[in-house]
């Protein structure tokens, strides 16, 4: 187990270092188009081949890591925090607050947020800086991505509300905020960890999907999501395995996150 966790740390470290060292590892940059060798297989010059516009796929992978690895976890953290505040707090408080939170949650789950996103795009200038567009995209994802976890957190917090240790703490005169943040939230950790871990790849992919609305990472900047979209075109693993490297890297990173975040003790039936 320790070995696995260490391997996870190493994996994350390699990815982070590679993305930080991108200007040295890929000096030509992510936008450089080799127009005479587009859609090329791996070579000495292009370790993962080139994409359909002749851009080095390896360069785009490590530069794309910077955006995805930084912003996706940040958005995941935001959505997790919101889930705690809406779901966890409502479940703990119960009564009217719980009903209101559940109602708001159901409403959020039902609304066609596509139109809000289209409106956000409309409000942005067409030549908005890439950083603005990207940051706004992940912010919106974080603000909208809390609903599923909030429901489960509400149920969990509700269960904890009537637990003995909490009753004792309450009887001891601890203030409500301390009760919630020090005694309830840590017990919600399994759901919080799941929410955080699930959100990272979901947000990475959602960012790429939002490009159909004009949001997300604008060209020619790369992101993991845009690299993964290459897989949408009937790509065969046997014929073009190098196109699956971004997927493998993402799965490795996500798995590493989970191994690091998972409980210290492995308890099985």
């Amino acid at each position, binding site marked *: *187990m320790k070995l*696995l966790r260490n391997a996870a740390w190493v994996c994350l470290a390699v990815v982070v270092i590679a993305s930080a060292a991108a200007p040295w590892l890929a000096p030509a940059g992510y936008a450089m188009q080799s127009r005479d060798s587009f859609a090329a297989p791996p070579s000495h010059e292009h370790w993962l081949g080139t994409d359909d516009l002749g851009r080095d796929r390896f360069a785009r992978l490590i530069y794309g890591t910077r955006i995805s690895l930084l912003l996706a976890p940040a958005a995941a953290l935001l959505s997790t925090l919101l889930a705690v505040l809406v779901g966890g707090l409502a479940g703990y408080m119960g009564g009217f607050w719980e*009903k209101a939170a*559940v*109602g708001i*949650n*159901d*409403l959020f*789950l*039902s*609304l*066609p947020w*596509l*139109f*809000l996103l*289209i*409106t956000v795009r*409309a409000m942005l200038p067409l030549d908005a800086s890439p950083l603005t567009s990207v940051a706004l995209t992940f912010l919106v994802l974080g603000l909208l991505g809390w*609903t*599923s976890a909030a*429901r*489960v957190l*509400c*149920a*969990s917090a*509700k*269960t904890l509300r009537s637990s003995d240790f909490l009753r004792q703490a309450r009887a001891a005169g601890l203030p409500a905020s301390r009760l919630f943040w020090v005694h309830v939230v840590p*017990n919600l*950790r*399994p*759901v919080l*960890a*799941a929410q955080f*871990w*699930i959100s990272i*790849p*979901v947000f*990475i*992919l959602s960012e*790429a*999907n939002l490009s159909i609305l004009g949001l997300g990472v604008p060209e020619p900047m790369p992101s993991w999501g845009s690299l*993964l*979209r290459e*897989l*949408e075109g*009937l790509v065969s693993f046997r014929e073009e395995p190098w196109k699956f490297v971004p*997927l493998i890297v*993402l*799965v490795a990173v*996500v*798995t590493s996150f*989970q*191994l690091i975040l*998972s*409980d210290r*003790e*492995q*308890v*099985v*039936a």
Partner: protein
Amino acid sequence: MTRKVFHHAVSLLVVLVLGGFLAATMVRLAPGHNVDEELLDARLSSASRQAILQARHGDQSALQFYLHWARNLLHGDLGTSQSLGQPVAQLIRDRAPVTARVVCLGLLMGWSAAIALVLFAAATRRRVGDVAGIAVSGALLSLPAAVLALLSVIWNLAGSLAIGLVVLPRVHRYSWNLLQSAYARPHIITARAKGLSASRIFLFHVIPVVGPQLLALAGISVSLAVGAAIPVEALCGIAGIGQLAWQAALSRDLPLIVHLTTMVALVTVTANSLADLAAGREAAA
């Protein structure tokens, strides 16, 4: 219990009304709500263009539209789709069973596979089971919906597989974490120390602890599956509600969007309410 059902019914009504109104507002505020692709047709005369623009309810506010829509709904008139030119009632009637089938099968697949992965991890008693589960879930979460839809087509599973693969990693991760946390509780450790069988511990001591959360997860997974049905049906060419919702969104078909939002709200709230009621009964028991 009756009181709880009543509260849920009231909550449902409030969500339906608010949901419909907010959906109408969002569509009206979004750019492109009062235009049509037809306007790019160079053959159209000025009068025809004006007629097209007029037909898009350009002069009605969101509230006016919504009140008009609600009044018609109370009379059983669901109106006509702007983009497809067909009665909304007929469109929903034809497509709802298709989506229901795809979603139910997808949920069944997703939950079955998630439980299988959880049991495998539990049975191996080694970290390898957990890591395998994490890797599988991580891989599925990292695949674009278009790829999942293609896999569905390749294996002739008509979209259900794609929905199952969307539901699986989420259900797996939440349920595994919940179970792990439950197994770490003192009373479980005590029960094991006292020699109770694994199945007895699981059924009588673990499930009651995680039951409410799992039920909440079940309710959420219905919303997830319905949400996933939209891109999956659009990509796989399945004539369901999801495909209809996607077409309606792209063409800003306001009457259809409001009806479909109300439907989704109905399904979401009903699923979550049933889960809450079941969890409440279990807690009481």
